[in-house]
């Protein structure tokens, strides 16, 4: 818009100004559509553009479906409000010197939309509570999971036990900048948690130093590992595969490198793996005195 036109109060200038305003709003609309199309249509090899990752564990799937419903309601509200705004801006664009309608409010209308907003929230809260049980309570392990795989007796204060009481209980300890996994039979591993397909895995999260947060997006939400506290979460993988995630709470300089991996394998493979892991750990522990002797002899210790 040139300064000359803006300064000239003639009708031609006004019309041109209004046309330019239209063009601006057209431009805005095109931009928004373009952004949306980009978001939806850009080629991706992964989910999680408009909705969170899921497909690994029932809790992640339930969060996904809850999210999708909430998003749909949210988008309707957003486009309703934004659309109304754009229509008003277009419809009531002003002429120089003219005043708008002197309306100061409408009590009935205002009470109406306050109640409507409250009702929408009641619906959202209802949907959440309906899904909550399936997200918080660990699912039952598959039938073919043996009792001995399930580890120790299951007991906790604030997380309901999985039906049937069968679960693989793993203690996860975060430290700068690695996750350690302690299995029921005394084996442990770092960085990669190996679990049997079909078993409900209940995690007890702890931290050895600062706050960390456990997150494997496809296997459900986060749970913080805070020193001095034990947090809990669970997942149940129904197909073999590798699921990755990373620490989600700033834990120091190499926070970005604190990767976590879950590898789900067939139950018999898990049995073999966990036994081998335990054996190797025992061997390593036995070899420590010999190693120490050698280092002493070589003058390195």
């Amino acid at each position: 818009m040139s300064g000359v036109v803006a300064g000239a109060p003639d009708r031609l200038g006004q019309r041109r100004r209004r046309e330019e305003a239209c063009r601006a709003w057209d431009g805005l609309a095109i931009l928004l559509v373009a952004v949306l199309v980009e978001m939806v249509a850009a080629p991706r090899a992964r989910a999680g553009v408009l909705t969170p990752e899921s497909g690994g564990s029932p809790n992640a799937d339930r969060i996904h479906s809850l999210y999708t419903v909430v998003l749909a309601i949210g988008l309707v509200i957003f486009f309703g409000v934004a659309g109304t705004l754009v229509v008003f801006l277009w419809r009531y664009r002003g002429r120089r010197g003219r005043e708008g309608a002197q309306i100061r409010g409408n009590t009935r209308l205002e009470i109406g939309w306050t109640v409507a907003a409250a009702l929408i929230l009641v619906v959202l809260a209802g949907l959440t509570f309906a899904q909550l049980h399936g997200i918080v309570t660990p699912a039952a392990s598959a039938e073919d999971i043996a009792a001995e795989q399930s580890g120790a007796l299951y007991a906790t204060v604030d997380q309901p036990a999985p039906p049937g009481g069968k679960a693989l209980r793993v203690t996860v300890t975060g430290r700068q900048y690695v996750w350690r996994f302690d299995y029921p039979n005394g084996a442990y591993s770092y960085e990669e948690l190996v679990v049997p397909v079909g078993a409900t895995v209940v995690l007890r999260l702890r931290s050895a130093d600062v706050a960390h947060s456990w997150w494997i997006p496809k296997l459900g939400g986060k749970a913080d590992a805070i020193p001095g506290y034990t947090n809990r979460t669970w997942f149940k993988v129904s197909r073999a595969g590798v699921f990755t995630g990373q620490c989600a709470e700033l834990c120091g300089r190499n926070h970005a490198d604190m990767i976590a991996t879950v590898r789900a394998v067939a139950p018999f493979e898990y049995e073999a793996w966990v036994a081998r892991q335990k054996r190797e750990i025992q061997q390593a522990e036995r070899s420590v005195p010999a190693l120490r002797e050698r280092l002493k002899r070589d003058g390195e210790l």
Partner: protein
Amino acid sequence: MSVHAGTARRAAPEILLRPRRVAEEPSGWLGWLTTTDHKRIGILYITTSIVFFLLGGVEALLMRTQLATPDNSLIAPQAYNQILTMHGTTMVFLFVVPIWAGFANYLVPLQIGARDMAFPRLNALSYWLFLFGGVVFYVSMFFAPPEAGWFSYTPLSNRVYSPTGGQDAWIFLIHLTGIASILGAINLVVTIANMRAPGMGWGRLPLFCWSAFTQAIMLIVALPAIAAAVTMLLTDRHFGTCYFDPTCGGSPLLWQHLFWFFGHPEVYIMILPGFGVISEVLPVFARKPIFGYKAIAASTIGIAFLSMLVWAHHMFTAPIATVVLAFFMLSSMTIAIPTGVKVLNWVATLWRGSINFKTPLYFACGFLVLFTLGGITGVMLAIFPIDWQVHGSYFVVAHFHFVLVAGAVSAIMAGLYYWFPKMTGRMLSERLGKASFWFQFVGFVMTFLIQHALGLSGMPRRVYTYSASSGWGTDNLISTIGSYILAIGVLLTVLNVVLSLKNGRRAGNDPWKGNTLEWFTPSPPPPHNFDVIPVVRSVEPMRDIRADLRRERVGTTALQSATARGADAR
């Protein structure tokens, strides 16, 4: 009401004969250093916080540049954490909160028809404390900046994991700016409660003043919690106490509770004055009264009250019983009601208006669209099972930049374009202003809309890099390009301000035909603000005054022509 009655009331003898004495101030830079004039202090606040805004913006661009490509090694991990701590702390404590203090300082006495704040010297003290807080913090940049984030979670921020003095500089920043804010807030509450123009009851208080008043009360309630928390952190770090250290019986969760008990009201402290600006700008440019004055004022108070009850929604992933999470979900959702009411009232204000498309209106409409989206993602985050997936991810980064950049910063821009003529006597360029708006709008959407997707696909916040195999490269590059466009938009406004200070069109008293009393006095206003303090008869006193003047002028013209006719006849 007849013209005579109006004139007689305005000329109430008490107001005319005993104007409050306003101190003479030295001219030049010494005047600025020693000033106790609320207008000068307001301008000091605003310029200082804009300088910090630009510093924080540079920090943001550094982070975006580092994240533009996967496995980038431009910025080392330690430096990245330092920059993200500086960015967050700067934007919250040294930009948004103080710039609102600046606007409130400048505008509240003018809008309520007072000659200054209640305690002018306290006001100056507030500003200098804020400045020193910022300086102490930024000086740490030359030694060892803090690197535990603006939220400084323990144990990461205790002496074992953050041994350098940078963390202590952060603590002193919180203390100094905190005292500054509390003093400023008390001053504002006293001013608004006691110094309103005759006739200005609470029901006629301008909506910006309502929001500033409510915000001030929130500051008074919320800031002591963080002041106590950082003092405890200081004694943990240096004097052997154990408030937050789990190795000797302390609780890291206690820090989280104390921090967010302050931290969530802080979010509304940053946005409420923005609501006030939008409530002032929309009616003026729609040439219509605000739709539902009472609902907007009441919802401001409602938001302030509820915002004190929602802090644990920042801690949904911490080890807390489910029933507690459910409470905080419901309380957080409830805030959406007064906020939604406001948005609908603002949209309805445009209904059947006669909309004047000036830059402040552009920014106000940008605010409406983007803030609504940020509010909706806010409700999604309040639902704690959903939060478990998106917490601590780029989804949250996107959400709060929608409410704080598209919300608070848009409102600050709208306020700047709206009140700059009053503060300087010069108009800002409309052409540069609209260009600045479009750059900011497009840049903003490009930077932050895509970040929702990044978070949903698993990218956590506060990571200095990510691997190419994650597939986050394209989205991050788009976001980075957007951030540069956004920066150009901000620079256009800075340029506009610099150019218009000297060369802008002269504004006159009332360039926008405003509704509130600041437009009654010359631009820039004299040190004593008003020669005569008018009696307030409605929510829109300037409208009444303009109507009175028009009636008087019509009367005078009629009288003149009658006299002239009489002279002709003779």
